[in-house]
């Protein structure tokens, strides 16, 4: 038995695919499957789930048999940047819904820009103000996007 951290990352990738395949097949089976000559809505998804499961198993086994190349160290995780980029998109969705285009635009650029270590909050502020101008001129005025510049509530 290999040690946990010695496993090739394909083992995890394969396992992920297999689990996904099982989920797809199980969920697909809740729709009617039908027969080969009269397929129901569940037939194709179940078949895809099975293929996904099998390919996942194959990837996992192949990964288990190969020894990982240990000399190349993966770059450190960027949790802060990842969090801020995800948050910026969520902020866009929420703010566009309740406050309008200008706050949403400002938020998506400002928050995501802070994810880059080289950006100071001042630089991020300038960048987001510049993009707000683009948003108003190009998207609101020229392309007439269906979002008010400002709004309060829905």
């Amino acid at each position, binding site marked *: 038995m290999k040690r946990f951290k010695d496993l090739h*990352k*394909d083992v*995890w*990738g394969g396992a*992920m*695919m297999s689990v*996904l*395949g099982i989920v*797809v097949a199980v969920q*697909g089976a809740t*729709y*009617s499957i039908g027969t*080969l*000559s009269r*397929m*129901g*809505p569940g037939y*194709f*998804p179940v078949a*895809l789930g099975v*293929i*996904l499961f099998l*390919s*996942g198993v*194959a*990837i996992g086994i*192949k990964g288990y048999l190969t020894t990982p190349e240990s000399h190349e160290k993966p*770059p450190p995780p*960027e949790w802060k*940047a*990842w969090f801020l*980029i*995800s948050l*910026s*998109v*969520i902020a*866009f*969705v929420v703010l*566009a*819904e309740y406050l309008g285009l200008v706050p949403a*635009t400002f938020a*998506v*650029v*400002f928050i*995501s*820009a802070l*994810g*880059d270590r*080289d950006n100071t909050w001042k*630089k*991020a502020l300038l*960048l987001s103000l510049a*993009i707000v101008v*683009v*948003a108003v001129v190009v*998207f609101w005025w020229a*392309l007439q*996007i*269906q*979002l008010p510049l400002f709004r309060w509530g829905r």
Partner: protein
Amino acid sequence: MIILQSLQDLWYGFSVALTPHNLMWSFFGVLVGNLIGVLPGMGALSAIAMLLPLTYTMHPVPAILMLAGIFYGSQYGGAIGAILLNLPSHPPHAVTCLDGYPMTRAGKGGTALGITMIASFFAASFGIIVMIFASPLLVQIAFKFGPTEIFSIMLLGLLAGSTMARGSPLKGIAMTTFGLVLGVVGTDVNSGVARFTLGFPELTDRLELVALAMGLFGVADFLKSVNRMHFIGTETKVRLRDMRPTKAELKQSFMPMVRGTLVGTIFGAMPGTGPTITTFIAYALERKIAKNPERFGKGALEGVAAPEASSHSKTQVDFIPTMSLGIPGDAVMALLLGALLIQGIQPGPQLISQHADLFWGLIASFWVGNILLVILNVPMIGIWVKLLQVPYKYLFPSALFFIAVGVYSTNNSLFEVGEVLVFGVVGAVLMYFDFPVATILLGYVLGPLVEENFRRALLLSRGDLLVFFERPISATFMIACILLIGGQLFFALRAHLKHRRAGLLGPLPAVHETATDQ
């Protein structure tokens, strides 16, 4: 006879492409494509996906002319970054870096760009000619296609797309299947059952193509590259007269250009082979037949001319199966196919007769667009070089805004902006595990067509699976599928045995892979 007819149709096509309105959109597409292609980390896929929403209100002809313009415009742009800054902003150009960048450092960057331009134009022209004459022939065969044949050829396309990509064929298959599953999401056309909607009413309408593409190729890439992409700004100055190659240089690059073009044409005709593998093979071929291969990697002109030519002829030839069979060759074509479907145009053998203005107009616009590109690139090269130096820290936040607003305007739906984030995270995780995400898009676009034709074929044959082998055309595709899998197994086994014996070195230098890699 058929040749005469084609020429006549082409003439008609030029009359469509040269109307001021269409010409304007073509020019716009080429310009924007070129611009986005130059930007680091942005390729044809993100460029098309970003501008796709703009086409919804347009007439189909200018819409598709513009999108095609973006496509080959971004290819030109990608080469510039590869040659001048050693930055493969789009994976197919990764090999161009190998010899293009050393040329820049030796002060011959201008020449490399000039040769790239000539090679691209030559290859694109050749590809267009192939397209003009091959499409009508293919259509004659395609009219004999029923659901059985369509399913078999799609299966072949999907298999080729997933196994011929760079990287593990098994992972390619897993990703294609994942894409097919994503294509299932929504209401089943036959029974009206809502599938995999996870309780969201918004999902009964299928996943949004633009959201999926922007998530996988935009947000996922930002998540992967943030704080990891740093550029060394070079003070490259390219002047106009530097770009004109000498007679000797032209002569030196002519044969590589021809060979690259042929490689691209062959790979374009095969559904599912990605652009990256094409350029790598063109490069490998040049190195193999060169008299002194040690020059490669140190600024050999052939190493720039051949891969660039191959990628451009492949692009053109790729349109043949996409337009005449409705089967996209790679992820970019899948996106273009999606754009056609949104416009209510079903690509397939009927397309050429039913939408003659669109088909021949598109072909003619390829030429017009390629000429526009050459004209555009000569004076603009200085601006492109400047653009290349836009720091990533400003680029990705701005791009995130464009993605969010672009996806929103597709259907005025904020839910779909949320989809982008989900697929961005999913794509980033998959990329971490070295899965080729581009094939997901291929599966997603073809998914509903595959299911529909599979069901119909088996309904007609009363559940007899052998029907796929009984009809001759379908059987040919099925045999090709089997050969493909058999070949892959053979090569995998042989590589495994070789690996055991000793040899480790691959034939080509390793190149950093990115999201849009195929």
